[in-house]
């Protein structure tokens, strides 16, 4: 009897562990779903264009076909290093949507006179700097030629060295902290930087709200929000204002006391460029405490998570961002059709077909990677890295070219949007250029 019990016990425990393993992977498959189908379809096109691949691929299932196509050498792998879970999961998924849409539109690329199928390889960095390196290593060991991502500066900074050691170039999509590209030759980025964004936001606060005191709230240990708050503080104080700067610890969901602090400081504006997860809580708690001053944030808040949280509440929210819906009609319509046509994509976009700026950036990043591959004339990561310095591209978010010191995109425009609390959409406010 006792024996039996022990047996059941160990069986049960093993089952629990196995179940958690399955669920752990389940997320990866949920995101990878589209990639798996993309990979299969590219494998079948490979089969038609390449006779040797046909004979080997015909017998195998989808997975086998993919691997055959990869070894036969006409698939180029692009790593997607993005968060699909954690604080920034929502944003990461929207950024990936842009890449997946671009991949569905242009699944092949001509490199050195040969047509390659593009396969997106996904790795979830879980928005966490301690998971970042292992996610990056997965991409390195799967043999990608170039990496796109990530949403969130902290994880990009954490993985930079892994990519550098493997000699793989990375294109930052919406990581705006300067440290991502500083002091290395393999990390590039296609978006604007925080010193620029912080200054724009500070100027906007002073010009439009006559703000004299700002309350900044960042997440402790988060490179992005702390960094952006610092740049905002610098610019705001240079304009003659005063700043009260506080940080909250990881896992905090009680913001009422911070909002009371902001009120006590007589803040004219609350600046809190934190992850959307915390942002939704801040908006909710600010509105229930009757905050009347505007809330401002950077590019992370440009998400339908924010508009959803703000709908029906009496609150003003302003953000700066990379792309304004309506900027490119073809892209908007194409992406909307793509999102509406796929239940997983729709869910990943938060249940509606509003276009996030990060999706536009993900879309552009994919094409920048293709340009670089074309320029390199090879799938060798080293060649792609060298080619990236000279790569230029006119994307939906504007002209992209890299400066020659850090590999940052040369950008001078940010869009300011305001959350419409009635319709649950973003209203365009102004186009801000660097002064």
């Amino acid at each position: 009897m006792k024996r039996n019990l022990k047996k059941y016990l160990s069986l049960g425990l093993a089952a629990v562990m196995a179940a958690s393993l399955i669920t752990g992977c389940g997320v990866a498959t949920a995101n990878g779903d589209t990639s798996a189908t993309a990979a299969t379809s590219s494998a079948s096109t490979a089969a038609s264009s390449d006779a040797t691949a046909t004979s080997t691929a015909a017998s195998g299932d989808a997975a086998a076909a993919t691997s055959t196509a990869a070894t036969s050498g006409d698939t180029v792998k692009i790593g997607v290093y993005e968060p699909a879970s954690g604080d920034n999961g929502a944003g990461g998924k929207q950024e990936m949507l842009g890449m997946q849409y671009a991949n569905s539109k242009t699944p092949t690329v001509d490199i050195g006179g040969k047509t390659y199928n593009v396969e997106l390889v996904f790795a979830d960095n879980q928005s966490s700097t301690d998971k970042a390196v292992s996610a990056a290593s997965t991409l390195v060991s799967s043999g990608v030629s170039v990496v796109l991502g990530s949403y969130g500066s902290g994880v990009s900074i954490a993985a930079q060295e892994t990519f550098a050691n493997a000699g793989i170039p990375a294109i930052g999509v919406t990581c705006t902290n300067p440290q991502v590209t500083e002091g290395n030759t393999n990390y590039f980025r296609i978006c604007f930087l925080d010193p620029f964004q912080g200054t724009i936001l500070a100027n906007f606060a002073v010009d439009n709200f006559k703000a004299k005191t700002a309350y900044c709230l960042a997440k402790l240990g988060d490179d992005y929000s702390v960094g952006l708050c610092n740049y905002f503080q610098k610019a705001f104080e240079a304009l003659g204002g005063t700043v009260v700067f506080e940080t909250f610890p990881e896992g905090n969901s009680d913001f009422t006391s911070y909002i009371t602090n902001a009120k006590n400081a007589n803040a004219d504006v609350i600046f809190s460029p934190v992850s959307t997860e915390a942002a939704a809580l801040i908006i909710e708690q600010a509105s229930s405490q009757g905050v009347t001053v505007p809330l401002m944030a950077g590019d992370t808040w440009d998400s339908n998570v924010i508009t959803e949280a703000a709908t029906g509440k009496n609150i003003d929210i302003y953000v700066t961002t990379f792309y304004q819906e309506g900027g490119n009609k073809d892209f908007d319509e194409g992406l909307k059709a793509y999102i509406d046509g796929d239940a997983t994509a729709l869910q990943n976009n938060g249940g509606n077909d509003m276009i996030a700026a990060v999706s536009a950036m993900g879309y552009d990043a994919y094409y920048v990677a293709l340009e670089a591959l074309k320029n390199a004339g090879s799938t060798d990561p080293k060649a792609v890295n060298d080619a990236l310095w000279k790569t230029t591209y006119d994307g939906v978010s504007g002209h992209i070219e890299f400066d020659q010191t850090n590999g940052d995109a040369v950008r001078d425009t940010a869009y300011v949007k305001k959350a419409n609390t009635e319709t649950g959409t973003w209203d365009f406010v102004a186009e801000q250029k660097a002064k």
Partner: protein
Amino acid sequence: MDWSVVLPYILSGISVGGQYALIAIGYTMVYGILRLINFAHGDVFMVAGLMMIYFSASMPMYYSIPLMIIFTVLLGYAIERAAYKPLRTAPRMSIMISAIGVSYLLENLALYVTGGLNQNYPGIPWISDSITIGGAVTKRVTIITPILTIVLVVALILLLKHTKFGMAMRAVSRDFDTAQLMGIDIDRVISVTFIIGSFLAAIGSLLYFTNYTGVVPTSGAMPGLKAFVAAVFGGIGSIPGAVVGAFIIGICENLIKGLDSVLMVNGITSQQFGFATFSDAFTFVLLIVILILKPTGLFGEKQTDKV
């Protein structure tokens, strides 16, 4: 000193303290009876939040709230039956590991179901409305929480002290084996303990997420941890201890967050010290200090092991 500045912090402290208290009772009761720290309790709390979101999306509040409570209770009961009951004779460490396993299972299931995205908790009419108390604007739930917490705790203590079943529970917590010899159905007592714990966690989750409206798979971790600290702080095994501990932790935590602001408004200092950053660190320092000074906690039973 202008005390009206302090009021909003105390209000939110009392509110969050009440929510911690409701979770802490679940910890402390299970510990009292099984000598088990039920690590899955915080996750049951999170799952209750998720259930409310999914139920309220498809049915009106007066169905979804009772349904959420019933399902949370069933979940707590099922966890006890599936993961703890078979281990009753096993070493205590095995049960503890099993609890950790359940905790991870629930978190990962939630990750799978939600895709890791933040889910917005529905606004509950009346209790999520904003009200003004002494110049501080807050949600009505802030006031309801401590009252409801105290009512529930009093009811629970009455149940324990004045019913036959309560007597059985106290007997089991005093001496497991002897209680069994006296003809008390141990399994029933333990199941009821889990049912009460889960019921309070469900109510706690309703109040907590109405205030802090976002549920992610790790939402249960922090409140669970704080409630556990509260239970240890008050003396684990003691229900009044858990409640007092929870209120102290909730209030202190919020006062620390606001200390800078209070000092500055009152003109005591013009410089920022950045105390807000240390609000969580404070909670755990408090725990360490209490454990050093009074190892059994504030209301902990002084128990001498008889040989």
